[in-house]
């Protein structure tokens, strides 16, 4: 996104007119990215056990609604409003989307569209965190966490990287085309923080906890990949050659990530798995997110492959270091995000970036250094602030479900539903309605 100047609406309206081609593509891209969050819900939902699949789906699905409200009230203004202080945060000029009408432009597209496109990024970033705390989170605490996290963590980082005069892009000069820092590293580091606040699932490292439905995982990965073309291709904010290059890079890196992960599994474990293929594609897509608009196709292929291989090892770290990042938000999104953001320093080409070049393309080590500083700053900020938010919520209302709720299953205990009601005896809540319920009977839940 660095290559397209994001102008203040008034200035933009004066210097550039609306481009209907750009606008048409971004309208479509926004719809593509919106679909990624339900896709993520299925991707995560398939990975958990049958007793908490609905809870897992709902944590993503509800994030769509929560983040939208926060974004329109304050998030957009603080992230993309005029810089208020030293490239750290935007001003309050557009609270409640004030002053933005159908004619207001950002670059060559309506600001209403730009803000909606950015909103879909914020949604999925919040939803991604839920994978680190699967199967044990108190749902009401999640409803509090998501809005607070969006305002205190996502919004500032988005401003640093993509906002007008944000310090990472403008003072430091680090590149992040579609969200390696803002989406992947932010969600990964935040996932680690909340996983540490909540502690491991009961039975972590003892029980197998295998994914209950790999078909759902593959369906989710497919929807994510589909939506990712809008995520990365749309980040050019234009219907042009850069968007096309980003789109191709996104396809390539997903493929090499998939193959890299399967290769490791075949060599290490003796059998390539469906779960590995889905995870590998996502790892490659994560890594190409920051780099898709800054590297040429060969660079994208290497970045995807590196992510597929490294992440296939990184997902086992949690067992050695004893943090229960249940669905590998750290192992895939954090690690993949770091790989993709750093490798820009090696593979950036002037044709793509419009200036900065990587080490392998004659640009020296300067860009690599900038990328590393950005990674460390974003990882540290997002981890520390999220850890603090998590601790405060845990102190005030409890962030974790009770052990009985967790062991019985969050679907039944928190939502009064079950995803699969196969039993003939009807264990779940979906019983035949009784015509005249006797309300004098003991109503305390049988446990």
């Amino acid at each position, binding site marked *: 996104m660095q290559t397209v100047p994001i102008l203040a609406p008034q200035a933009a309206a004066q210097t550039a007119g609306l481009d209907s081609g750009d606008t048409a593509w971004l309208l479509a891209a926004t719809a593509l990215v919106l679909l990624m969050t339900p896709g993520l819900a299925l991707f995560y939902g398939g990975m958990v056990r049958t007793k908490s699949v609905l809870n897992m789906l709902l944590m993503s699905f509800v994030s769509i609604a929560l983040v939208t409200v926060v974004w329109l009230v304050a998030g957009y203004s603080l992230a993309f409003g005029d810089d208020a202080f030293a490239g750290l945060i935007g001003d309050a000029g557009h609270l409640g989307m004030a002053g933005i009408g159908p004619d207001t432009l950002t670059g060559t597209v309506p600001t209403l569209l730009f803000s909606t496109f950015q909103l879909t990024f914020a949604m999925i970033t919040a939803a991604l965190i839920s994978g680190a705390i699967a199967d044990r989170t108190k749902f009401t605490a999640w409803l509090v966490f998501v809005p607070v996290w969006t305002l205190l963590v996502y919004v500032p980082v988005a401003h640093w990287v993509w906002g007008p005069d944000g310090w990472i892009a403008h003072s430091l000069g680090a590149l992040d085309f579609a969200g390696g820092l803002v989406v992947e590293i932010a969600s990964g580091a935040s996932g680690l923080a909340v996983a540490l606040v909540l502690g491991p699932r009961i*039975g972590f490292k003892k029980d197998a906890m295998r994914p209950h439905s790999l078909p759902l995982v593959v369906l989710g990965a497919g929807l994510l990949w589909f939506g990712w073309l809008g995520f990365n291709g749309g980040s050019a904010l234009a219907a042009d050659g850069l968007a096309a290059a980003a789109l191709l890079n996104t396809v390539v890196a997903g493929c090499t990530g998939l193959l890299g992960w399967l290769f490791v599994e075949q060599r290490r474990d003796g059998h390539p798995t469906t779960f590995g293929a889905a995870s590998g594609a996502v790892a490659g897509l994560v890594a190409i997110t920051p780099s898709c608009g800054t590297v040429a196709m060969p660079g994208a292929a290497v970045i995807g492959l590196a992510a597929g291989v490294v992440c296939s090892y990184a997902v086992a770290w949690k067992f050695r270091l004893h943090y229960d990042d249940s669905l590998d938000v750290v192992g895939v999104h954090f690690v993949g995000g770091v790989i993709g953001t750093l490798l820009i320093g090696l593979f950036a080409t002037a044709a793509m970036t419009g200036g900065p070049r990587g080490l392998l393309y004659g640009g020296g080590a300067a860009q690599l250094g900038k990328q590393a500083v950005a990674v460390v700053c974003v990882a540290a900020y997002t981890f520390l602030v999220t850890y603090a938010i998590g601790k405060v919520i845990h102190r005030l209302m409890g962030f974790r479900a009770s*052990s*009985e709720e967790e*062991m*019985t299953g969050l679907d039944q205990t928190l939502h*009064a*539903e079950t995803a699969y009601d196969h*039993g003939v*005896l*009807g*264990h779940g*809540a*979906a*019983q*035949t*309605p*009784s015509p005249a*319920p*006797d*309300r004098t*009977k*003991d*109503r*305390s*839940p*049988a*446990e």
Partner: protein
Amino acid sequence: MKLITAVVKPHRLDEVKTALQELGVHGLTVTEASGYGRQRGHTEVYRGAEYRVDLVPKVRIEVVVEDTEADAVIDTVVRAARTGKIGDGKVWAVPVDSVVRVRTGERGPDAL
């Protein structure tokens, strides 16, 4: 020999299993079960309608032990399964005439 049957809350299964292993019980059988006791199920509200849930999910744990061990096993199961809340379940024992180990044909206590 005695057959000890325990019907307990599903989420206490791990505790009971661990406690029995520590006591030295060699084998057990677990079945998912449904039922009600004195609590008689409960009502739930879902999507605005009220439902009567008579059969509550439980697990049934069965162990065959020698007569001398029966009391210790029962005490262990009760201790491990108890939460103190409604619906903790029941444990009972019945005499067993004969037991055969299928693989070797051993009979009686030797087959346990």
